[in-house]
């Protein structure tokens, strides 16, 4: 495993280095970049990770999942699930997934977040760089090395499961969802919204919402901005 990890004290961000490794040096599956201090820690939609770097664990891993291109967004769910499993070691009660990229505790505090930079080949996923960041303060200030090892192991495991049984990964994400059954408003990009009760993730990784009259609507990650918990109409 030594050759699979590169460590940097300072870098723009872990994802950029892992991406370069994957594209220029054919980084193998599971290759990991760890950065102590990210200058530009970007998450989904390029949003900044707001926690201080000295209280953050940041790592990026190379995945080469055997997925069709239209199921590429499942990588986000799998990455979230991996982070959740790693966080379950440190947090009680068990943390929850906040689709598509966050892991939260039972108070709704963000323990960590993931980002997936997905490279497509014709009709399939060529590779993905999965970045995970953990807020050490919220997790209870465990030792940094221990968190890195836990996240690394969990991401490797879930990447293998994604190849062998994507449906199981999807079901596990649904089971751990903080939104299950909640009435939510998904704000879309560039504008608009979709409302309904959250019903889990579909085969392409999109959030499924269902209305009280049974109409199913899907929210793809690419057009998803943010989520608010709504109130069902009278």
């Amino acid at each position: 495993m030594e050759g699979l990890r590169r460590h940097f004290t300072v870098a723009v961000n872990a994802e950029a280095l892992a991406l370069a490794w994957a594209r220029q040096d054919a980084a193998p599956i599971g290759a990991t970049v760890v950065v102590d201090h990210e200058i530009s820690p970007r998450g989904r939609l390029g949003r900044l990770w707001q926690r201080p770097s000295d209280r953050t664990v940041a790592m990026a891993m190379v995945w080469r999942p055997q997925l069709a291109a239209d199921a590429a967004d499942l990588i986000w769910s799998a990455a979230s699930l991996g982070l959740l499993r790693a966080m379950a070691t440190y947090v009680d009660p068990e943390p929850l997934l906040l689709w598509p990229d966050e892991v939260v505790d039972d108070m709704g505090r963000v323990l960590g977040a993931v980002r997936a930079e997905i490279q497509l080949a014709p009709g399939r996923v060529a590779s993905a760089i999965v970045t995970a960041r953990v807020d050490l303060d919220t997790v209870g200030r465990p030792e940094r090395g221990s968190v890195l090892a836990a996240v690394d192991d969990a991401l490797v495991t879930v990447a293998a499961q994604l190849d062998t049984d994507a449906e199981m990964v999807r079901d596990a994400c649904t089971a751990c969802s903080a939104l299950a059954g909640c009435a939510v408003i998904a704000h879309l990009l560039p504008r608009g919204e979709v409302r309904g009760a959250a019903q889990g993730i579909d085969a392409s990784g999109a959030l499924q919402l269902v209305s009280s009259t049974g109409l199913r609507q899907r929210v793809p990650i690419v057009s998803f901005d943010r989520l608010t918990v709504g109130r069902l109409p009278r």
Partner: protein
Amino acid sequence: MNDTGGPADVARTFLDAVAWAEHTKVWSLLSSQARSAVLEVAARRGMDPLLAARLRESTAGADERDNFLADLLHGIRADLSGVDFDSVRCVCDDAANSGTATVRLLHDVPAPLGGPLPVGFVELAAESDGSWSVVRAHGSA
């Protein structure tokens, strides 16, 4: 069938149904005139006439109906795109003795800025049983 409330109540129910994708409720709140108009437009835009007939007669399959009503919802949402469903107020000014009513959709803004801002309207018609149904909704006053 629709709610037995007044025009403003029915308009509010209609807006909530549109916002929360209650597709069959939206359809049931539309007047027969509005449903015919919707199907006529759909047919002009290429809908299979037989499907339009099945939808008109309520004999379409669930998938056919859901696809059609999902498109209808998208269209209504586009028409009401400037309306904040959560904060808008529905106000009906007249007693509507004529069998029709117009409900104004108002968004409250601070008094120095001019008071309630009209952001749309919903036109309703009285049915023979005394209930109200939606004829038209639009997002610009």
